[in-house]
């Protein structure tokens, strides 16, 4: 992997990491959800900081080019995050459903009480 690509990816990861941190400190995203994004940054920095080690692993796993392995794992992580989001949406859908139902019943009970 060329030194140019490594430096470029490190800079991008850094900026992205700072952006996420900024959002956490401003309390714009819940910490529990920020962790999955952070894992991506940490993985990137770890891999880029140890080019020799990374090369060995990618060779061992059968990737022809080290950068392919980085992109592959980034892609897998994004898929996983997208799936987590689906899970969160499904849970919230259920929560909204039961809220809507309870409000409707409560309103009816209040009206019947009058």
């Amino acid at each position, binding site marked *: 992997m060329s030194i140019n690509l490594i430096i470029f990816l490190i800079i991008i990861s850094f900026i992205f990491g700072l952006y996420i941190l900024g959002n956490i400190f401003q309390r714009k995203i819940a910490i529990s959800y920020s962790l999955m994004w952070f894992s991506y940054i940490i993985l990137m920095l770890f891999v880029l900081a140890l080019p020799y080690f990374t090369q060995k692993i990618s060779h061992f796993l059968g990737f022809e080019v080290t950068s392919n392995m980085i992109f592959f794992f980034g892609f897998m992580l994004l898929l996983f995050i997208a799936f987590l989001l689906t899970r969160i949406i499904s849970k919230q*859908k259920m929560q*909204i*459903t039961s809220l*809507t*139902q*309870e*409000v*409707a*019943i409560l*309103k*009816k009970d209040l009206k019947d009480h009058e």
Partner: protein
Amino acid sequence: MKKVLIIVPAYNEAESLLKIVIELEKVKVKDYQIDYLVINDGSTDNTYELCEENNISYVNLINNLGIGGAVQTGYKYAYYHNYDIAIQFDGDNQHDAAFIKDLIEQINEGNALVIGSRYIGNKSAFKSNFIRRFGSRFLSSLINLLTKHKIYDVTSGFRACNQDLIKYFAFNYPSDYPEPDSLVQVIKLGYKVNEIPVKMHKRQTGKSSLNLVKGAYYMIKVTFAIIIASIATRKEAK
């Protein structure tokens, strides 16, 4: 005196609703107090105003939840108010209130869930079109295969259930394809299910929620839901 709640889910059914309510108010069964509850599922027509003006017993959902969420609201209401029997009755004039007493009778005989069927007996002249019948038959065979129970009208929205199932449905009612999905769950949980012939009418107002194009996609999704329900429902969940 035992209490029966008739759950009437209504989404943009203002045209037919009043007629149904008048019919339901006339239903009398000896030894039973019969109440009904219209669930206005976020209708965009004047269903809400209609309910308000005519003193109809209703609850108003502030979001459109779809048929599953709407019907579940009725089960929750029945559970919170200690009803003994809950009956689903569609808000589009397809069902015939004359058969409510038959459903209640079947619950009395020890069934947990009773389905009003358009496919058994010869009470119903209307059996819906060929494609729907084919789809229904397929789902019926699938459920037979997975549960060893033969139910003919698995998508019927005219059903009655006892207190145990009111409690179960209040907190476990599928949102997407509720009739076949919940049927499989109930059988898998080991409850007694029966099917009786009823008369069903062709929809007079509004249009069916299914059309030809959506039909095939619906079948795939519903098949998936049924298979999931039959695998994931365990007796101990009761």
